[in-house]
């Protein structure tokens, strides 16, 4: 039977109506977007200005308000792909283990001196003065708690400690997760709109921030590790000076020159609970901070015991100031002064509040699109889509007459369904995505063309109109399915192997393939069968 049963016909109509309903908000993009922004504020319990209240009422609540997300290439913004240097963390862990390892080894019978030897970062190489107890020393090192360690001997009196592979993998994972969290907090603190921060693969993070004008702006927020720590100063230093293993030679950006400081910090930035921009007694920009209870106690004790000595405030391996301890500082609050501008102190406060990145990040890829260019692309894409649709419609009507009208209706339905699917899935429309839509407009008629050509052939064999149309649909099915499944295979591969914009293209093309088969087989057929049932034509021109 060519005609659908009543229930099936109603089901098809419902799908089409639902599609139109879901696609509709995209026609009023600005209005709906403002409505959604205002709705978010209401949800968070924030007060609305009069303008925002008008925005909220600009689109009725009972209508669907899902929109197609515009990609960064269309609305402008910054895309960054960064890699977390997870190996950085290994070295720190080794530094952390060293005091405990040293004390344990010293406690062994027959060991008098224990020395740390230079080694690659991530390795802890220790030399003891008695080769006879190396076995026992290694066993003791394996027993250190906290991490799964690999202990090996490199010489008769020297052993080497490294993290096990499993431990490294877990650590990598944790480092990336923490970095992601910290980046998210920093971007949120900076107050940008709808940032997207996602992990990609094992070591990478993709940061997308719409509306930003330059990548540098974003990198100033997320690019710095912002690790703050307080170290006792040992002595003045000079460039190229070699220092002992438990010391560091760092540049002093405040006063110039170099200082030698102890490697292990008194207190670290992870014990900060708050940081705010402020001004020092001379009215210069500074950053005020507060420690948590543990940090406050450590800092208090240290300042009490070391009055008169200097300590260095170190940010990302640079000394930003090295004041003298004038008196005991209880209470755990303090102020960092240095060569700041007001802006820098405000930014530093944000970074310190959000917390340090566990490891450095390296930028692998950056793409910035200005909002102007994005708008141009949207306009160009929209005009191209309309022109393409118009041209295809004229062509179809010229070729297939009244059948072409049906194909046109089904093409329009197809475009509506595509937008409905994209909005409902929350997919992101990119410039290649628009190309996908335009291409689908061209290809979507293919299913209709196949059916119509079949009907022509069937008519030529002398069949009655209704019978020919029915046969046409039936016989075109296998070709249409084969053709579209092969396209889908390519689309699926594009989706999984492609990245960024290519993915956007594959999503729209894939949705287009599915909706075009649906519209050809159900919508066109529904229209055709109703037309034939109503007019009962004896002959038909196709």
């Amino acid at each position, binding site marked *: 039977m060519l005609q659908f049963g009543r229930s099936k016909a109603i089901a098809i109509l419902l799908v089409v109506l639902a599609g139109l309903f879901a696609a509709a908000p995209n026609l009023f993009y600005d209005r709906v977007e403002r409505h959604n922004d205002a709705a978010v504020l209401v949800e968070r319990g924030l007060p609305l200005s009069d303008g925002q209240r008008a925005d909220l009422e600009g689109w009725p609540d009972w209508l669907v308000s899902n929109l197609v997300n515009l990609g960064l*290439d269309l609305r402008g913004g910054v895309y960054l792909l960064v*890699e977390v240097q997870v190996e950085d963390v290994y070295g720190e862990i080794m530094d952390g283990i060293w005091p405990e390892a040293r004390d344990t080894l010293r406690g062994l019978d027959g060991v008098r001196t224990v020395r740390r030897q230079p080694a690659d970062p991530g390795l802890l190489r220790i030399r003891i003065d008695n080769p006879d107890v190396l076995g026992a020393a290694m066993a003791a090192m394996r027993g250190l708690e906290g991490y799964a360690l690999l202990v090996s001997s490199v010489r008769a009196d020297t052993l080497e400690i490294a993290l096990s592979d499993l431990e490294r993998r877990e650590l990598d994972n944790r480092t990336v997760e923490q970095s992601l969290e910290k980046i998210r907090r920093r971007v949120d603190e900076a107050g940008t709109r709808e940032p997207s921060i996602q992990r990609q693969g094992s070591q990478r993070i993709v940061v997308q921030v719409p509306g930003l004008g330059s*990548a*540098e702006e974003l990198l100033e927020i997320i690019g710095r590790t912002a690790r703050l720590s307080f170290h006792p100063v040992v002595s003045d230093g000079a460039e190229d000076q070699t220092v002992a293993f438990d010391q560091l030679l760092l540049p002093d950006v405040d006063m110039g020159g170099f200082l030698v400081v102890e490697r292990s910090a008194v207190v670290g930035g992870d014990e900060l609970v708050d940081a705010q921009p402020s001004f020092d007694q001379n009215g210069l920009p500074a950053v005020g901070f507060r420690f948590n209870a543990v940090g406050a106690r450590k800092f208090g004790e240290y300042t009490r015991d070391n009055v008169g000595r200097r300590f260095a405030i170190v940010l990302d391996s640079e000394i930003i100031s090295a004041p003298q301890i004038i008196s005991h500082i209880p209470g755990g609050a303090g102020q960092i002064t240095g060569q700041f501008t007001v802006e820098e102190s405000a930014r530093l406060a944000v970074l310190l509040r959000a917390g340090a990145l566990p490891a450095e990040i390296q*930028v*692998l*890829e*950056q*793409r*910035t*699109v*200005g909002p*102007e*260019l994005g708008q*141009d*692309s949207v306009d*160009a*894409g929209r*005009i*191209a*889509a309309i*022109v*393409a*649709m118009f*041209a*295809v419609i004229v*062509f179809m009507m*010229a*070729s*297939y*007459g009244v059948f072409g009208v049906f194909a046109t209706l089904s093409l329009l339905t197809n475009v509506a369904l595509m937008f409905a699917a994209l909005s409902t899935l929350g997919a992101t429309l990119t*410039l*290649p995505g*628009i*190309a996908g839509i*335009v*291409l689908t*407009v*061209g*290809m979507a*008629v*293919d299913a209709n*063309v*196949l059916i119509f050509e079949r009907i022509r052939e069937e008519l030529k064999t002398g069949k009655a109109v209704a019978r020919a149309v029915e046969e046409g649909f039936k016989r075109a099915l296998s*070709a249409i399915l*084969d*053709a*579209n499944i*092969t*396209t889908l*295979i*390519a689309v699926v591969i*594009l989706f999984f*192997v*492609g*990245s*960024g914009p*290519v993915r956007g*293209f594959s999503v729209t*093309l894939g949705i287009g393939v599915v909706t075009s088969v649906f519209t050809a087989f159900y919508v066109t057929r529904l229209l055709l069968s109703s037309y034939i049932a109503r007019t009962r034509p004896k002959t038909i021109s196709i």
Partner: protein
Amino acid sequence: MRLLKLVPADTHVNFIGARRVAVIFSAAAMLASVALFFVLGLNFGIDFRGGTTMIVQTPQPVAIADYRVAVRDLGVGDVQVTEISATGVTDKNQAMVRIVEQGDDPEIQADAIATVEDALEEAFEGLTVLSVESVGGKVSNELILAGFMAVFFAVLGVMVYVWLRFEWQFSVAAVASLVHDVIVTIGLFSLLQIEFNLAIVAAILTIIGYSLNDTVIVFDRIRENLRKYKKMELPELINQSVNETLSRTVVTSGTTLLALFALYIIGGNVLSGFTFAMIWGVVIGTYSSIFVAGLVVKWLGVDRSDKPSSKAGTQFADIDA
């Protein structure tokens, strides 16, 4: 109303008869493409080569030569400036600036970008930077690999599908015509030195999908006719199948080309390379499904005996016939 008919209702073009011309044309085109690829090479974009591209806009027209003077001797290696042809709505004074990759350190690249930006802003008043894209060498190598993998798996996936639905001869023929299309497309990109980037890989994959679409329609008809005309000679049968589907092939290619030309002319410069690849792909895909695919099936021959074993590879072929 008289309807437009691009293809007469009943055609008997002897496509298989014209095989000599097609074989010579295709073989020559493929050989030339391979030669062009090795002699001229592809003009890889930053996606595959690493480096930076910037799009800048000025209030007044600026000659490309003036740009070149402005970016000379900045100490950041070769800086190329090319004009962006005015297409559609973007009839503005825009130019594309390319900076080579400075090495492994991303910070040095960032400095180079800033240097070029400053130099341009100083030289041309009111210049704005519309977009900056920068890809590091590490990522670009991965992208090349991913691109190859995508094309390879797409061809493989298609091969398996066609083999399941038809017979192995068809599968080989389909893949042969795909490889033909891809090689000739790469040859054209080498010849014209159009920038080859990720979007072009996407275009090639779409061409694969499209060309296959066409080929499968023809195969579907060949399969149907094989059942219908058990006695007809294979060349004649293939010819008839191509003729029967010719009208559809031309109409679909026509509508797709209409849409693509709209995009190419109006869609702006960002998409022009992509759309160009697609237009070419539709043309070459249509050609290959008419000439190449059928020809390969003819060469390989089809097992037309009714032995059950000959149906081994076609167990899904009847589900909807």
